[in-house]
């Protein structure tokens, strides 16, 4: 496969959030603002790239029967590493994302990519695949966070936009209902876009 399409497919055609609907929980929970969404996405990207690379490196020595447990250990290790690093150096973001950092380990994209891609391809392709998918995820979360932030608190990346006069924004968008609504309409939009191209 061409490395470029390999890299870009995660953006639109196979966008993990809006098309494949993987990792819906973090997508809903952590997108209260653009930074949070992006942060979560990048953390996932890190895990994805690293675990894809490592798995493709060791794929040949892993016996079939312990494939899944081995993958889980590898992935979980990277998740723990991200968790520790963020706690140490990005404490504010870490506390915002909370429980959803350890939950990266069960995010379907990570294990799914390991199974479907990294276990069959070389290290470079796997890393690129991970990066593409991860960035697709991160951008998706970032956009969703951005929309919710603009509508919900009238700001983007923390910058106040003063859109709504006497109120900051429509609070529903930073709360649970807004997450579902924005997600729903974004999925629909990507449906349409993908059909058009």
């Amino acid at each position, binding site marked *: 496969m061409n490395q470029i399409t390999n890299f870009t497919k995660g953006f639109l055609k196979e966008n993990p959030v809006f098309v494949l609907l993987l990792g819906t929980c973090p997508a809903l929970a952590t997108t209260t603002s653009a930074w949070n969404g992006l942060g979560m996405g990048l953390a996932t990207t890190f895990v994805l790239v690293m675990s894809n690379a490592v798995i493709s490196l*060791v794929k*040949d*020595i*892993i*016996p*079939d*029967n*312990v494939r899944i*447990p*081995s993958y889980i*250990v*590898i992935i*979980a*290790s990277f998740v*723990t*590493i991200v968790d*520790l*690093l963020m*706690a*140490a*150096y990005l*404490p504010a973001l870490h506390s915002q994302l909370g429980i959803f950092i350890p939950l990266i380990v069960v995010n379907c994209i990570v294990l799914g990519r390991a199974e479907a891609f990294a276990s069959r391809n070389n290290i470079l392709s796997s890393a690129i695949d991970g990066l593409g998918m991860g960035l697709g995820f991160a951008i998706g979360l970032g956009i969703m966070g951005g929309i919710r932030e603009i509508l919900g*608190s009238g700001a983007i990346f923390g910058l106040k936009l003063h859109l709504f006069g006497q*109120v*900051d924004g429509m*609070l529903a968008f*930073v*709360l649970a209902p807004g997450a579902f609504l924005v997600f729903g309409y974004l999925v629909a939009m990507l449906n349409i876009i993908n059909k058009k191209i």
Partner: protein
Amino acid sequence: MKSTLTNMWLVLGGITLIAGGALSYMFELTKAPIEAAKQEKLKQAIAMVTPAFDQMKTISVAPADGQGDSLTFYQVSSKGQVVGTAVKTWTDKGFSGRFWVIVGFDTSGKVINSNVVEHKETPGLGDKTDIAKSDWNTQFKGKDLSQFQLKVKKDGGQVDAITAATISSRAYCDALQRAYDAYMLNQKNTTKP
């Protein structure tokens, strides 16, 4: 690869071994920064409501009326001299759920500053009690609570309530009152360094 019992053991053992090694190394590496970050957070919260300090002492104190969970006192001192106390206090009168506030008193019992630690109030309403969202709680700065009527104006006090969030405003006052009462009651034994 075909699986046999030995290669499975070897591989899985190897992977966990390496993972364990890497993780523990990482843990050792980040231990200090994490601890520092945690301390930093607390310190910042305390520093915001107290004068500059170089030492801190943590004490757990029961509320003045003896009801409910105890409060945490962070007695701060500079150059061996107690300069103030930050009190982490709570109230259940919030709009929803328990409401945690930290308030700093100087040695005379005046409020230095106060802020929200943790709350479940509605974003946009109750969260205006947070200094990051609005400067509502600056009205308590420097107030001597023995003179200042710690009640919202509607209830005959001196506090301007947040528009449409009287409940949260009241709760905040309640938390401060609890801290103040406990502080005054315990002042005798806590002023000693």
